Protein backbone atom coordinates (compact mmCIF):
# COMPACT_ATOMS: atom_id res chain seq x y z
CA UNK A 1 0.00 0.00 0.00
CA UNK A 2 1.18 3.46 -0.81
CA UNK A 3 1.98 5.58 2.21
CA UNK A 4 0.08 8.78 2.54
CA UNK A 5 1.73 11.94 3.72
CA UNK A 6 0.44 13.59 6.86
CA UNK A 7 -1.30 16.45 5.03
CA UNK A 8 -3.17 14.00 2.84
CA UNK A 9 -4.11 11.94 5.88
CA UNK A 10 -5.37 15.10 7.57
CA UNK A 11 -7.55 16.00 4.58
CA UNK A 12 -8.84 12.45 4.44
CA UNK A 13 -9.81 12.45 8.12
CA UNK A 14 -11.36 15.90 7.91
CA UNK A 15 -13.61 14.94 5.03
CA UNK A 16 -14.53 11.69 6.73
CA UNK A 17 -15.57 13.36 9.97
CA UNK A 18 -17.34 16.29 8.33
CA UNK A 19 -21.08 16.46 8.61
CA UNK A 20 -21.46 18.16 5.27
CA UNK A 21 -19.50 18.57 2.05
CA UNK A 22 -16.48 20.85 2.50
CA UNK A 23 -14.96 23.42 0.20
CA UNK A 24 -11.20 23.69 -0.22
CA UNK A 25 -11.24 26.65 2.15
CA UNK A 26 -13.25 24.75 4.75
CA UNK A 27 -10.69 21.98 4.65
CA UNK A 28 -7.79 24.41 4.87
CA UNK A 29 -9.36 25.87 8.02
CA UNK A 30 -8.88 22.48 9.64
CA UNK A 31 -5.63 21.20 8.23
CA UNK A 32 -3.80 24.50 8.07
CA UNK A 33 -3.17 26.89 5.22
CA UNK A 34 0.29 25.50 4.57
CA UNK A 35 -1.25 22.35 3.16
CA UNK A 36 -1.86 22.10 -0.58
CA UNK A 37 -5.45 20.98 -0.19
CA UNK A 38 -6.11 20.66 -3.91
CA UNK A 39 -3.17 18.37 -4.42
CA UNK A 40 -4.25 16.31 -1.42
CA UNK A 41 -7.78 16.03 -2.82
CA UNK A 42 -6.44 14.91 -6.17
CA UNK A 43 -4.31 12.26 -4.52
CA UNK A 44 -7.23 11.01 -2.45
CA UNK A 45 -9.58 11.02 -5.40
CA UNK A 46 -7.18 8.80 -7.30
CA UNK A 47 -6.63 6.59 -4.30
CA UNK A 48 -10.31 5.96 -3.74
CA UNK A 49 -11.23 5.44 -7.39
CA UNK A 50 -12.71 2.00 -7.83
CA UNK A 51 -13.07 1.36 -4.13
CA UNK A 52 -16.18 0.89 -2.03
CA UNK A 53 -15.94 4.54 -1.09
CA UNK A 54 -15.32 7.40 -3.43
CA UNK A 55 -14.37 11.01 -3.05
CA UNK A 56 -16.65 13.24 -5.09
CA UNK A 57 -16.89 16.92 -5.84
CA UNK A 58 -20.29 18.53 -6.08
CA UNK A 59 -20.51 22.25 -6.66
CA UNK A 60 -16.96 22.87 -5.45
CA UNK A 61 -17.56 20.94 -2.27
CA UNK A 62 -16.05 17.60 -1.53
CA UNK A 63 -17.36 14.63 0.33
CA UNK A 64 -16.97 10.90 0.63
CA UNK A 65 -19.80 8.65 -0.38
CA UNK A 66 -20.28 4.97 -0.86
CA UNK A 67 -19.78 3.81 -4.43
CA UNK A 68 -22.99 4.12 -6.42
CA UNK A 69 -22.80 0.57 -7.77
CA UNK A 70 -22.96 -0.77 -4.21
CA UNK A 71 -26.11 1.08 -3.22
CA UNK A 72 -28.16 -2.10 -3.44
CA UNK A 73 -26.07 -3.69 -0.72
CA UNK A 74 -26.84 -0.94 1.76
CA UNK A 75 -30.50 -1.79 1.67
CA UNK A 76 -31.30 -5.03 3.31
CA UNK A 77 -34.69 -6.52 2.77
CA UNK A 78 -36.30 -8.18 5.66
CA UNK A 79 -39.30 -10.35 5.09
CA UNK A 80 -42.12 -10.11 7.51
CA UNK A 81 -44.69 -12.72 7.14
CA UNK A 82 -48.22 -11.40 7.16
CA UNK A 83 -51.45 -13.22 6.74
CA UNK A 84 -53.57 -12.32 3.78
CA UNK A 85 -56.90 -10.75 4.70
CA UNK A 86 -60.14 -12.61 4.05
CA UNK A 87 -61.05 -10.14 1.31
CA UNK A 88 -57.72 -10.76 -0.40
CA UNK A 89 -58.01 -14.54 -0.21
CA UNK A 90 -61.52 -14.42 -1.68
CA UNK A 91 -60.42 -12.11 -4.45
CA UNK A 92 -57.46 -14.32 -5.23
CA UNK A 93 -59.70 -17.37 -5.31
CA UNK A 94 -62.13 -15.70 -7.71
CA UNK A 95 -59.31 -14.68 -10.01
CA UNK A 96 -57.87 -18.18 -9.92
CA UNK A 97 -61.21 -19.81 -10.78
CA UNK A 98 -62.40 -17.29 -13.34
CA UNK A 99 -59.36 -15.74 -14.93
CA UNK A 100 -59.08 -13.55 -16.84
CA UNK A 101 -61.57 -11.57 -14.83
CA UNK A 102 -62.28 -7.88 -14.44
CA UNK A 103 -62.71 -6.04 -11.23
CA UNK A 104 -66.43 -5.59 -11.81
CA UNK A 105 -66.77 -9.32 -12.41
CA UNK A 106 -64.91 -10.11 -9.23
CA UNK A 107 -67.26 -7.83 -7.34
CA UNK A 108 -70.28 -9.41 -8.94
CA UNK A 109 -69.12 -12.86 -7.90
CA UNK A 110 -68.12 -11.78 -4.42
CA UNK A 111 -71.23 -9.75 -3.89
CA UNK A 112 -69.02 -7.21 -2.14
CA UNK A 113 -66.92 -4.43 -3.57
CA UNK A 114 -63.17 -4.83 -3.41
CA UNK A 115 -60.84 -2.10 -2.32
CA UNK A 116 -57.95 -1.05 -4.51
CA UNK A 117 -55.53 -2.18 -1.82
CA UNK A 118 -56.72 -5.77 -2.12
CA UNK A 119 -55.60 -6.17 -5.72
CA UNK A 120 -52.39 -4.26 -4.95
CA UNK A 121 -51.53 -6.68 -2.19
CA UNK A 122 -52.10 -9.65 -4.48
CA UNK A 123 -49.93 -8.10 -7.18
CA UNK A 124 -47.24 -7.19 -4.64
CA UNK A 125 -47.27 -10.77 -3.44
CA UNK A 126 -46.62 -11.72 -7.05
CA UNK A 127 -49.67 -13.93 -7.38
CA UNK A 128 -51.82 -11.78 -9.64
CA UNK A 129 -50.99 -9.87 -12.80
CA UNK A 130 -52.93 -7.63 -15.13
CA UNK A 131 -54.03 -9.74 -18.09
CA UNK A 132 -55.06 -7.28 -20.75
CA UNK A 133 -58.25 -5.38 -21.39
CA UNK A 134 -61.53 -6.88 -22.28
CA UNK A 135 -62.94 -5.69 -25.60
CA UNK A 136 -66.24 -4.50 -24.21
CA UNK A 137 -67.43 -0.96 -23.51
CA UNK A 138 -65.13 0.67 -20.96
CA UNK A 139 -62.38 -1.82 -21.89
CA UNK A 140 -61.95 -3.02 -18.31
CA UNK A 141 -58.62 -4.38 -17.21
CA UNK A 142 -58.65 -8.05 -16.41
CA UNK A 143 -56.57 -9.99 -13.93
CA UNK A 144 -55.07 -13.45 -13.94
CA UNK A 145 -52.82 -15.52 -11.68
CA UNK A 146 -49.10 -15.95 -12.18
CA UNK A 147 -46.64 -18.79 -12.31
CA UNK A 148 -45.60 -17.78 -8.80
CA UNK A 149 -49.16 -18.28 -7.67
CA UNK A 150 -49.07 -21.87 -8.89
CA UNK A 151 -45.77 -22.61 -7.25
CA UNK A 152 -46.75 -20.97 -3.97
CA UNK A 153 -49.87 -23.10 -3.71
CA UNK A 154 -48.16 -26.21 -4.99
CA UNK A 155 -50.27 -26.46 -8.13
CA UNK A 156 -49.07 -27.75 -11.48
CA UNK A 157 -51.75 -25.85 -13.32
CA UNK A 158 -55.04 -24.16 -12.60
CA UNK A 159 -56.80 -27.34 -13.55
CA UNK A 160 -55.49 -28.77 -10.28
CA UNK A 161 -57.88 -26.51 -8.40
CA UNK A 162 -60.81 -28.50 -7.07
CA UNK A 163 -63.99 -28.00 -9.11
CA UNK A 164 -67.36 -26.88 -7.80
CA UNK A 165 -68.49 -30.47 -7.36
CA UNK A 166 -65.38 -31.25 -5.34
CA UNK A 167 -66.07 -28.26 -3.15
CA UNK A 168 -69.65 -29.36 -2.64
CA UNK A 169 -68.54 -32.85 -1.73
CA UNK A 170 -66.09 -31.42 0.76
CA UNK A 171 -68.89 -29.44 2.39
CA UNK A 172 -67.30 -26.19 1.31
CA UNK A 173 -70.49 -24.98 -0.32
CA UNK A 174 -72.71 -25.64 2.67
CA UNK A 175 -74.97 -22.62 3.08
CA UNK A 176 -75.19 -22.85 6.89
CA UNK A 177 -71.40 -22.69 7.21
CA UNK A 178 -71.45 -19.83 4.84
CA UNK A 179 -73.91 -17.90 6.93
CA UNK A 180 -71.70 -18.42 9.98
CA UNK A 181 -68.65 -17.40 8.02
CA UNK A 182 -70.39 -14.25 6.97
CA UNK A 183 -71.22 -13.40 10.53
CA UNK A 184 -67.66 -13.98 11.59
CA UNK A 185 -66.40 -11.98 8.69
CA UNK A 186 -68.38 -8.87 9.40
CA UNK A 187 -66.63 -8.32 12.70
CA UNK A 188 -63.18 -8.76 11.18
CA UNK A 189 -60.57 -6.32 10.19
CA UNK A 190 -61.17 -6.02 6.52
CA UNK A 191 -64.54 -4.54 7.18
CA UNK A 192 -63.05 -1.08 7.02
CA UNK A 193 -60.98 -1.98 4.00
CA UNK A 194 -64.14 -2.84 2.20
CA UNK A 195 -65.81 0.41 3.01
CA UNK A 196 -62.77 2.62 2.51
CA UNK A 197 -62.17 1.21 -0.86
CA UNK A 198 -65.66 1.22 -2.19
CA UNK A 199 -65.11 4.11 -4.48
CA UNK A 200 -61.49 3.35 -5.31
Amino acid at each position, binding site marked *: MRELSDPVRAVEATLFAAEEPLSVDDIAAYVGTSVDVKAALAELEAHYAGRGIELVERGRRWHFQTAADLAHI*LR*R*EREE*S*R*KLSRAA*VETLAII*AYHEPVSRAEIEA*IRGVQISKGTLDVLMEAGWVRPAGRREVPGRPLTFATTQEFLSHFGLKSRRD*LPGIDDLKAAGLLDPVDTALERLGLEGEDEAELETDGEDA
Partner: protein
Amino acid sequence: MDPSDEPFETSGDHAPPAREGERLTLDLDGWEGPLDLLLTLARAQKVDLSKISILALVEQYLAFIADAKKLRLEIAADYLVMAAWLAYLKSCLLLPKDPEVEPGPEELALRLQLRLQRLQAMREAGARLVGGDRLGRDVFTRGKPEGLKVVRRAAWTTDLYDLISAYGIVRARSEPTVHIVARRPVMTLDEAIHRVERMLGLRMEWTALESFLPETQDPEFRRSALASSFLAMLELARLGKVELDQADTFSPLYVRAA
Protein backbone atom coordinates in the same frame (compact mmCIF):
# COMPACT_ATOMS: atom_id res chain seq x y z
CA MET B 1 6.44 16.81 61.01
CA ASP B 2 3.97 19.41 60.04
CA PRO B 3 1.08 17.56 58.56
CA SER B 4 -0.80 20.54 57.31
CA ASP B 5 1.42 21.55 54.45
CA GLU B 6 2.43 18.33 52.77
CA PRO B 7 -0.87 17.08 51.40
CA PHE B 8 -1.57 20.14 49.39
CA GLU B 9 1.65 20.20 47.46
CA THR B 10 0.80 17.00 45.78
CA SER B 11 -2.92 17.29 45.61
CA GLY B 12 -2.99 19.48 42.56
CA ASP B 13 -5.79 17.49 41.06
CA HIS B 14 -7.98 18.30 44.02
CA ALA B 15 -7.61 22.00 44.55
CA PRO B 16 -5.38 24.86 43.58
CA PRO B 17 -2.99 26.21 46.22
CA ALA B 18 -4.75 28.75 48.35
CA ARG B 19 -4.42 30.54 51.62
CA GLU B 20 -4.63 28.31 54.64
CA GLY B 21 -8.15 29.06 55.87
CA GLU B 22 -9.85 28.73 52.49
CA ARG B 23 -7.68 25.85 51.52
CA LEU B 24 -9.10 23.58 54.18
CA THR B 25 -12.64 24.47 53.34
CA LEU B 26 -12.14 23.87 49.67
CA ASP B 27 -10.30 20.66 50.23
CA LEU B 28 -12.85 19.13 52.53
CA ASP B 29 -15.41 19.56 49.80
CA GLY B 30 -13.06 18.03 47.33
CA TRP B 31 -12.31 14.76 49.10
CA GLU B 32 -14.10 11.67 48.01
CA GLY B 33 -14.31 10.32 51.55
CA PRO B 34 -11.73 9.54 54.25
CA LEU B 35 -9.94 6.89 52.21
CA ASP B 36 -9.42 9.43 49.45
CA LEU B 37 -8.01 11.90 51.95
CA LEU B 38 -5.72 9.21 53.34
CA LEU B 39 -4.53 8.29 49.88
CA THR B 40 -3.67 11.87 49.08
CA LEU B 41 -1.78 12.18 52.36
CA ALA B 42 0.00 8.90 51.64
CA ARG B 43 1.08 10.02 48.20
CA ALA B 44 2.65 13.03 49.89
CA GLN B 45 5.14 10.63 51.44
CA LYS B 46 6.51 10.28 47.94
CA VAL B 47 7.28 6.61 48.31
CA ASP B 48 5.73 3.50 46.92
CA LEU B 49 2.47 2.82 48.70
CA SER B 50 3.85 -0.55 49.80
CA LYS B 51 6.56 1.28 51.74
CA ILE B 52 4.58 4.08 53.31
CA SER B 53 4.72 4.67 57.02
CA ILE B 54 1.25 3.97 58.26
CA LEU B 55 2.07 5.63 61.56
CA ALA B 56 3.11 8.85 59.85
CA LEU B 57 -0.01 8.69 57.71
CA VAL B 58 -2.22 8.28 60.76
CA GLU B 59 -0.61 11.28 62.39
CA GLN B 60 -1.13 13.39 59.31
CA TYR B 61 -4.76 12.46 59.10
CA LEU B 62 -5.39 13.17 62.78
CA ALA B 63 -3.63 16.51 62.52
CA PHE B 64 -5.69 17.39 59.46
CA ILE B 65 -8.94 16.64 61.23
CA ALA B 66 -7.75 18.55 64.31
CA ASP B 67 -7.04 21.58 62.13
CA ALA B 68 -10.41 21.35 60.50
CA LYS B 69 -12.07 21.20 63.90
CA LYS B 70 -10.08 24.22 65.03
CA LEU B 71 -11.52 26.14 62.10
CA ARG B 72 -14.97 24.83 63.07
CA LEU B 73 -15.46 23.27 59.66
CA GLU B 74 -18.23 20.83 59.32
CA ILE B 75 -16.71 17.40 59.17
CA ALA B 76 -18.74 14.53 57.85
CA ALA B 77 -19.26 11.64 60.24
CA ASP B 78 -17.30 9.11 58.21
CA TYR B 79 -14.16 11.27 58.48
CA LEU B 80 -14.58 11.26 62.27
CA VAL B 81 -15.16 7.51 62.34
CA MET B 82 -11.96 7.06 60.38
CA ALA B 83 -10.16 9.42 62.75
CA ALA B 84 -11.32 7.42 65.78
CA TRP B 85 -10.24 4.19 64.17
CA LEU B 86 -6.85 5.60 63.19
CA ALA B 87 -6.35 6.89 66.74
CA TYR B 88 -7.01 3.37 67.96
CA LEU B 89 -4.63 1.94 65.38
CA LYS B 90 -1.98 4.43 66.38
CA SER B 91 -2.21 3.47 70.05
CA CYS B 92 -2.02 -0.22 69.15
CA LEU B 93 1.02 0.39 67.01
CA LEU B 94 2.78 2.36 69.74
CA LEU B 95 1.85 0.33 72.80
CA PRO B 96 3.44 -3.01 73.64
CA LYS B 97 1.80 -5.73 71.65
CA ASP B 98 -1.14 -7.49 73.28
CA PRO B 99 -1.24 -11.03 71.87
CA GLU B 100 -4.84 -11.43 73.02
CA VAL B 101 -6.11 -8.82 70.59
CA GLU B 102 -6.91 -10.15 67.17
CA PRO B 103 -6.21 -8.97 64.61
CA GLY B 104 -2.93 -7.42 65.58
CA PRO B 105 -2.13 -3.80 64.72
CA GLU B 106 0.25 -4.86 61.95
CA GLU B 107 -2.52 -6.63 60.16
CA LEU B 108 -4.82 -3.65 60.51
CA ALA B 109 -2.08 -1.42 59.14
CA LEU B 110 -1.53 -3.83 56.28
CA ARG B 111 -5.23 -3.87 55.49
CA LEU B 112 -5.29 -0.12 55.32
CA GLN B 113 -2.28 -0.20 53.06
CA LEU B 114 -3.89 -2.75 50.75
CA ARG B 115 -7.04 -0.69 50.51
CA LEU B 116 -5.04 2.40 49.65
CA GLN B 117 -3.17 0.47 46.96
CA ARG B 118 -6.43 -0.69 45.43
CA LEU B 119 -7.95 2.73 45.41
CA GLN B 120 -4.77 4.15 43.94
CA ALA B 121 -4.74 1.49 41.23
CA MET B 122 -8.30 2.31 40.21
CA ARG B 123 -7.66 6.03 40.32
CA GLU B 124 -4.72 5.65 37.96
CA ALA B 125 -6.62 3.26 35.73
CA GLY B 126 -9.51 5.74 35.52
CA ALA B 127 -7.13 8.54 34.60
CA ARG B 128 -5.55 6.48 31.85
CA LEU B 129 -8.94 5.45 30.60
CA VAL B 130 -10.38 8.93 30.29
CA GLY B 131 -7.08 10.30 29.06
CA GLY B 132 -6.97 7.88 26.13
CA ASP B 133 -8.22 8.45 22.62
CA ARG B 134 -11.90 8.88 23.09
CA LEU B 135 -14.52 8.67 20.43
CA GLY B 136 -16.08 12.03 19.77
CA ARG B 137 -13.17 13.85 21.42
CA ASP B 138 -9.98 12.54 19.86
CA VAL B 139 -11.18 10.19 17.19
CA PHE B 140 -14.31 10.55 15.14
CA THR B 141 -16.66 8.34 13.29
CA ARG B 142 -18.08 9.38 9.99
CA GLY B 143 -19.81 12.73 10.23
CA LYS B 144 -22.77 11.94 8.11
CA PRO B 145 -23.09 8.29 7.28
CA GLU B 146 -25.59 7.38 4.61
CA GLY B 147 -27.03 4.84 6.99
CA LEU B 148 -27.96 1.27 6.31
CA LYS B 149 -31.54 0.64 5.55
CA VAL B 150 -33.64 -2.30 6.41
CA VAL B 151 -36.53 -2.48 4.00
CA ARG B 152 -39.40 -4.40 5.43
CA ARG B 153 -41.11 -6.47 2.82
CA ALA B 154 -44.31 -8.24 3.59
CA ALA B 155 -44.22 -11.91 2.79
CA TRP B 156 -47.87 -12.65 2.35
CA THR B 157 -48.93 -16.04 3.47
CA THR B 158 -51.99 -18.11 2.89
CA ASP B 159 -52.48 -21.70 1.86
CA LEU B 160 -54.42 -23.71 -0.65
CA TYR B 161 -57.08 -24.70 1.85
CA ASP B 162 -57.75 -21.04 2.67
CA LEU B 163 -57.96 -20.35 -1.01
CA ILE B 164 -60.44 -23.03 -1.97
CA SER B 165 -62.55 -22.66 1.12
CA ALA B 166 -62.72 -18.94 0.43
CA TYR B 167 -63.97 -19.75 -3.04
CA GLY B 168 -66.52 -22.13 -1.60
CA ILE B 169 -67.74 -19.37 0.67
CA VAL B 170 -68.02 -16.91 -2.19
CA ARG B 171 -69.95 -19.35 -4.32
CA ALA B 172 -72.23 -20.39 -1.51
CA ARG B 173 -72.90 -16.78 -0.75
CA SER B 174 -74.02 -16.09 -4.29
CA GLU B 175 -76.27 -19.20 -4.57
CA PRO B 176 -79.98 -18.35 -4.31
CA THR B 177 -81.02 -18.97 -0.75
CA VAL B 178 -84.20 -20.95 0.01
CA HIS B 179 -85.85 -20.14 3.29
CA ILE B 180 -87.48 -23.07 4.99
CA VAL B 181 -89.31 -22.48 8.28
CA ALA B 182 -88.81 -25.43 10.55
CA ARG B 183 -92.09 -27.17 11.49
CA ARG B 184 -93.28 -26.68 15.00
CA PRO B 185 -95.55 -29.38 16.49
CA VAL B 186 -99.05 -27.89 16.20
CA MET B 187 -102.60 -29.16 15.85
CA THR B 188 -104.44 -27.10 13.30
CA LEU B 189 -108.05 -26.01 13.80
CA ASP B 190 -109.27 -28.25 10.98
CA GLU B 191 -107.51 -31.18 12.53
CA ALA B 192 -109.04 -30.41 15.90
CA ILE B 193 -112.61 -30.08 14.50
CA HIS B 194 -112.25 -33.33 12.63
CA ARG B 195 -110.89 -35.07 15.70
CA VAL B 196 -113.53 -33.73 18.12
CA GLU B 197 -116.41 -34.58 15.74
CA ARG B 198 -115.13 -38.09 15.37
CA MET B 199 -114.74 -38.60 19.11
CA LEU B 200 -118.15 -37.07 19.94
CA GLY B 201 -119.82 -39.74 17.88
CA LEU B 202 -118.72 -42.23 20.48
CA ARG B 203 -119.60 -40.23 23.65
CA MET B 204 -123.10 -39.09 24.48
CA GLU B 205 -122.28 -38.11 28.08
CA TRP B 206 -120.85 -34.86 29.35
CA THR B 207 -117.14 -35.21 28.88
CA ALA B 208 -114.32 -32.87 29.97
CA LEU B 209 -112.57 -31.02 27.17
CA GLU B 210 -109.17 -32.40 28.26
CA SER B 211 -110.19 -35.97 27.52
CA PHE B 212 -110.34 -35.10 23.81
CA LEU B 213 -106.63 -34.26 23.72
CA PRO B 214 -104.17 -36.72 22.18
CA GLU B 215 -101.69 -38.40 24.46
CA THR B 216 -98.35 -36.65 24.12
CA GLN B 217 -95.15 -35.92 26.07
CA ASP B 218 -94.63 -32.71 24.20
CA PRO B 219 -96.02 -29.84 26.30
CA GLU B 220 -95.98 -27.46 23.31
CA PHE B 221 -98.05 -29.82 21.19
CA ARG B 222 -100.38 -30.34 24.13
CA ARG B 223 -100.96 -26.60 24.49
CA SER B 224 -101.52 -26.29 20.77
CA ALA B 225 -103.98 -29.19 20.84
CA LEU B 226 -105.81 -27.71 23.82
CA ALA B 227 -106.21 -24.32 22.14
CA SER B 228 -107.29 -25.86 18.83
CA SER B 229 -109.71 -28.24 20.46
CA PHE B 230 -111.30 -25.40 22.45
CA LEU B 231 -111.80 -23.41 19.27
CA ALA B 232 -113.14 -26.53 17.57
CA MET B 233 -115.74 -26.93 20.33
CA LEU B 234 -116.83 -23.32 19.99
CA GLU B 235 -117.14 -23.73 16.27
CA LEU B 236 -119.16 -26.97 16.61
CA ALA B 237 -121.38 -25.33 19.27
CA ARG B 238 -122.04 -22.46 16.88
CA LEU B 239 -123.07 -24.99 14.27
CA GLY B 240 -125.38 -26.59 16.87
CA LYS B 241 -123.51 -29.87 16.81
CA VAL B 242 -122.43 -29.82 20.46
CA GLU B 243 -123.53 -28.41 23.81
CA LEU B 244 -121.09 -26.88 26.27
CA ASP B 245 -121.34 -26.59 30.02
CA GLN B 246 -119.13 -24.87 32.53
CA ALA B 247 -120.08 -24.43 36.21
CA ASP B 248 -117.89 -21.46 36.91
CA THR B 249 -115.09 -19.32 35.47
CA PHE B 250 -111.96 -21.50 34.94
CA SER B 251 -113.76 -24.65 36.11
CA PRO B 252 -113.65 -27.69 33.82
CA LEU B 253 -115.46 -27.31 30.50
CA TYR B 254 -117.80 -30.16 29.59
CA VAL B 255 -119.07 -31.07 26.17
CA ARG B 256 -121.58 -33.52 24.69
CA ALA B 257 -123.18 -34.11 21.31
CA ALA B 258 -126.26 -31.99 20.75
